[in-house]
């Protein structure tokens, strides 16, 4: 039985190598009153390991949505996206790209890989906070997220809210 994400804390995966940004995102999300759980992956490889429940992430929950930076060590954000979209389960997880790049190529590539939306990181503090608030409110209160699923194969474990 698929559970609505609102029944429990929303699981968010932030893929970001810049600790400054991680902190800002954490702070921005924390300002809201909605229960959420934020996990952080520092590079593309780690992000995919998390998403696939590999290694030390065997117990990790599938996130309800992903905040993805594009410039990442080891494996870039677009590659992570590509692998997610090739996976029957991971492809359904909404992804919000959070990038400092406003290069048209990056934007187009990301949408080609079916990201939910593409957001550039503002340099102005208030602007940054406003954007983060918008994302937070939008994803945690407005948007209807897809029901939770098991990692292995879709529908194989209908109650598989928990991974592993």
């Amino acid at each position, binding site marked *: 039985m698929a559970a609505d994400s609102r029944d429990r804390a929303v699981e968010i995966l932030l893929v970001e190598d810049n600790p*400054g940004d991680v902190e*800002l995102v954490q702070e921005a999300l924390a300002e809201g009153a909605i229960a959420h759980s934020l996990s952080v992956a520092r590079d593309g490889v780690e992000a995919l390991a998390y998403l696939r429940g590999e290694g030390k992430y065997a117990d990790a929950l599938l996130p309800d949505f992903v905040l993805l930076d594009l*410039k990442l060590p080891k494996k870039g954000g677009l590659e992570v996206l590509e692998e997610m979209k090739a996976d029957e389960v991971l492809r359904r997880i909404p992804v919000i790209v959070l990038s400092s790049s406003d290069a048209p190529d990056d934007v187009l590539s990301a949408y080609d890989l079916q990201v939910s939306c593409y957001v550039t990181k503002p*340099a102005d*503090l208030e602007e*940054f906070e406003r954007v983060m608030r918008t994302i937070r409110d939008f994803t945690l209160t407005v948007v209807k997220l897809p029901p939770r699923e098991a990692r292995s194969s879709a529908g194989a474990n209908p109650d598989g809210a928990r991974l592993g």
Partner: protein
Amino acid sequence: MQATPAFLSGPGLPLPQARLLLVDDEPANLLALESVLDGVAQEMVRADSGEDALRRLLAQDFAVILLDIRMPGMDGFETAKHIRRRERSRHIPIIFLTARAGDDFPVREAYDLGAVDYLVKPLVPEIVRAKVAVLVELSVQKEKARRQAELLRLLIEGTGDYAIFMLDPQGHVVTWSTAAERIEGYRAEEIIGQHFSRLYPPEAVERGWPAEELRRAEAVGRFEDEGWRLRKDGSRFWANVVISPLRDPAGRLMGFSKISRDLTERMHAEEEVRSHRDRLAQANELLQAEVEERKRAEDRLRRTAEDLARSNRDLEQFAYAASHDLQEPVRMVSLYTQLLQRHYHGQLDARGNQYIARVIDGAGHMQALIKGLLAYARAGTVVKGHEPVDSRAAFDRALAHLAEAIRESQAEVSGGDLPSVRADGTQLVQLFQNLIGNAIKFRAGQPPRVRVEAEPDGEFWRFQVRDNGIGIDERYHDRLFVIFQPLHDRQEYPGTGIGLAICKRIVERQGGRIWLQSAPGRGTTVFFTLPAVGGPQ
């Protein structure tokens, strides 16, 4: 030998005329002779004395003279002596007519005087006719032979380019011609009797070539050769030589005819042609080498251009990547300084607050520079040859982007008829946006008025963006299009000095040009060209 051109004037060779001189003091005898000899010769001339005969001999040539011995005055012997003394008549055969028979006739004296025969009176007509006829025939044949020889001589002399001469079987020169003299340099008396090897250069003589020529001519019947020959003065000429053996009817070798032609001039001409040809070939080779060198130079140039293009691309990528990567830390500086300002504003003194303001301002400017650099690098990566773009649509989009600035400044921006051009649509928007943005930004006291127009210019459209702004001193015009060369204090007119550099890049990427007309207080007009649809790709 003297020339007798008369016989050459006719088309053929007429037979020589045989003329007889009959000398006798008795008219009856002359009459009788005439009748006996009728038909033997074409003409008979009578003389009634020795003196008369000598007179006639001065005027005409005769084939035979029939001369009576006993005549009053000058007798026959006396007359014969005179005849013999004269060059012209010396060889004319004389038949004496005598009444004395047998031993009475002074035969020895008569023959000493050149008589060929004598007839004793009374004459026997058959004998007279027979003897005279033989002599006439002989004279005619002799004259024919003389004329033929003369003709041949004239022929040989006349062929001025050919040295024609004869050799005996051993190779000694037997005859010589004036042409031979002219070509070889020897006079007849110098060379006749000499061996013809004298006409060859020493090295040819040394290897026995002259003798070899005769041997081959004799064996084969004709020998032709070309080679150097020696003149009397030691100079050389290039000769074509034909040697033919001369044989009598029995086949015995009588000698050789040798015909030499001086081909030096021809050879020089050929040499000249050859040397021209060689020079031409050399020139061709040079040209070829030049062409190859140019090709190599072009290759080098192309490689250099390729290197340059690659290096440019690398540089653009570097600028792009670098500015992209720079954005991140600058944004961090900016954001966290702002956090610092927000959370700790109260805990710092005025100076501390000012420092923080400066950091924020600096980070902001750096960010603008990086954004500009990125835009500049990006403007260079767009390829040429686009689908047609409606510049009116680009203009409208630029106005939409500038809506806030236009509203704030109460600017009035208008566009004329704007054509379709070959350009990147996004870049065209940026181009208008930068230029109109500048026009608004650098406004004078009154609300800015900006007018955008275009008119055809060959295969291009020439656009102009005209404003009523502050204008720019001409000495700064060149700096305007250089990246990071702002003209104004950042406090006065904030900016990075990159806008026009990007415009220049966008326009030049499409093969166009950009320039401006401006003076302080007189506004500014920026011109740029872009390829028309159907213009250069």
